[in-house]
């Protein structure tokens, strides 16, 4: 292997870690909602899109085709993305949190689609199908490869921070309450717990992470458009990642994200080498395979690679 090839592989590895990390953030979010609290959120792509567009609008330069010109630094953009997602998730939660899982799934997918419709059609704000481009990327002024490595480190640090935060929550009373509600709502209510409030809190926290992931993606790709947040792939991939990695387990969530993203990306590279007509069909074949993988995991390894560990009764520091 010559140094050019090695360099290429390293860059590819950095991209894997970056995107994998972004998906890990989403998986951690879904883990709070589904893994801990049993909330079936099928509208992941909607919150992802909101986060992406908010930071895009706030950090890009003024433009005649969309809202912009606030020129905020990326950090503020991301924080705002999280804040806006939090508010919207809270409103959605108020509306939907009492729905049973089948109905919550349908409602969230519907809400996700409404968000996408709005983002696509309010062209004055979002430039519709053409999307928002030239989104600033942190570290982009550094020379290669440090710009890419810098962003990757940023993503990985964010993953680590949230991992530790959520692990602490999991073992704390609030986190245990979420699982108690998931297991036996009736008893939790009888014990006087405000079930709806905890569920909404879990929903909001999870959605905030999804919005953050959307924001990070917008900066990474430097572009956001309705197609870039293709709902089925985003939502579906995150679900498969969490189920395969281990729902209810934060490490499982992260593992599932990196593992499946690598498979997803790798198969894209492989099929990219096929002749043109086959390459197009191969894209659909990859989705077919991920779908099949999900069925196999659900039937054989329902707990995932790293199944849920229940916190022991004596809490260690």
């Amino acid at each position: 292997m010559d140094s050019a090839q090695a360099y290429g592989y390293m860059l590819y590895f950095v991209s894997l870690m970056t995107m994998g990390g972004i998906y890990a953030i989403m998986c951690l979010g879904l883990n709070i909602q589904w893994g801990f609290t049993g909330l079936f959120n099928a509208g992941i792509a909607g919150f992802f899109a909101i986060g992406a567009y908010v930071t895009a609008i706030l950090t890009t330069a003024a433009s005649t085709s969309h809202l912009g010109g606030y020129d905020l630094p990326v950090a503020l953009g991301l924080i705002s993305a999280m804040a806006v997602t939090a508010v919207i998730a809270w409103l959605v939660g108020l509306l939907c949190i009492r729905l049973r899982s089948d109905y919550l799934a349908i409602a969230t997918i519907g809400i996700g689609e409404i968000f996408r419709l709005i983002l696509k059609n309010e062209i004055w704000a979002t430039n519709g199908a053409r999307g928002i481009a030239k989104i600033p990327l942190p570290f982009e002024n550094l020379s290669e490869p440090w710009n890419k490595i810098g962003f990757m480190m940023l993503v990985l640090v964010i993953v680590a921070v949230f991992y530790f935060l959520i692990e602490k929550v999991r073992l704390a009373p609030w986190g245990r309450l979420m699982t108690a509600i998931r297991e036996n709502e009736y008893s939790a209510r009888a014990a006087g717990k405000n079930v709806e409030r905890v569920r909404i809190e879990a929903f909001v926290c999870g959605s905030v992470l999804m919005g953050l992931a959307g924001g990070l993606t917008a900066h990474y790709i430097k572009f956001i458009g309705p197609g870039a947040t293709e709902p089925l792939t985003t939502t579906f991939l995150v679900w498969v990642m969490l189920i395969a990695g281990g729902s209810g387990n934060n490490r499982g969530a992260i593992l599932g994200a990196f593992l499946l993203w690598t498979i997803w990306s790798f198969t894209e590279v492989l099929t990219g080498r096929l002749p043109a007509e086959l390459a197009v069909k191969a894209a659909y074949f990859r989705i077919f395979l991920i779908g099949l993988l999900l069925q196999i995991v659900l039937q054989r390894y329902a707990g995932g690679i790293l199944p849920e560990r229940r916190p022991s009764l004596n809490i260690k520091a």
Partner: protein
Amino acid sequence: MDFINFYLIPGLVLGSIYALGAIGVSLVFGILRFANFAHGELMLIGAYITYSLMQFTGLHPLIVLPIAMLFTSLVAVGIDHTFYKPFRASKSTIVIVASFGIALMARSAVQIIWGVDTFSYSSGRIQMPMILFDTLRLSHKHVWIVCCSVALMTVIHLILTRTRTGKAMRAMSDSAELARLTGIKTENVVKATWVLGASLATAAGVFLGWDSHLHSMMGFYMLLPMFAAAILGGIGQPYGAMVGGLVVGLAEELSAYPWIGDSPLLSPAYKAGVAFALMIIMLIWRPSGLFKGRVF
């Protein structure tokens, strides 16, 4: 007159299509107890199989429709046996996730086999609509669609009320446990449910494709309106689904009518959102639907 020709009639046509799909969704929801996220793809498969049968035989889609129904039913029963049956005793959330995956698998299979171009049933001839009373324009295919839909719904009604299997389906929808205790072979009822649901979905897909065109995302675009219609009518209430379908279809088309002033009440781009909004309102305000279906 514009109202009737360009809003009311398309609303009825779309409503009939939604109704046919929603009946299947409602039956599956009521008997198998889960929201089948792959139901739109049954429509997709049915429509594309019809297309190929048409290409193969040169016959009109309505004529090959029964054969397509048979094939789609086989596919549906096969999918159920391989991917849903293992979860009969599990929480419904697992099988919903599985059905989400099946939807993507089915869609990609269609994309691999037929590709992502749009197709059309008609060979390009434009048929002149019939003009009645000097102002009412009825296109032949709209008449066919609505009449065939009514015919199919009547057949469903007869099956559910006059046949042993149909009654067993209603019984199982009421209480699967009591059905088992009564000696009803629940797996046979399940198969019958899939056959009915898939056949109706095939018809809905063909009518939709006939009215517009075929493309690989049409299943997904139909899914939420069908869920909305089924929820509106009440889960497990096939007659409710018929009404629900019409309501959703009419609401969608009529939302673009300039009720107040000159411009459409709702921008046509948001038409798709009407079904979603209706559904969410129903879920929050009255989850049992207009006809007191089951609330899970």
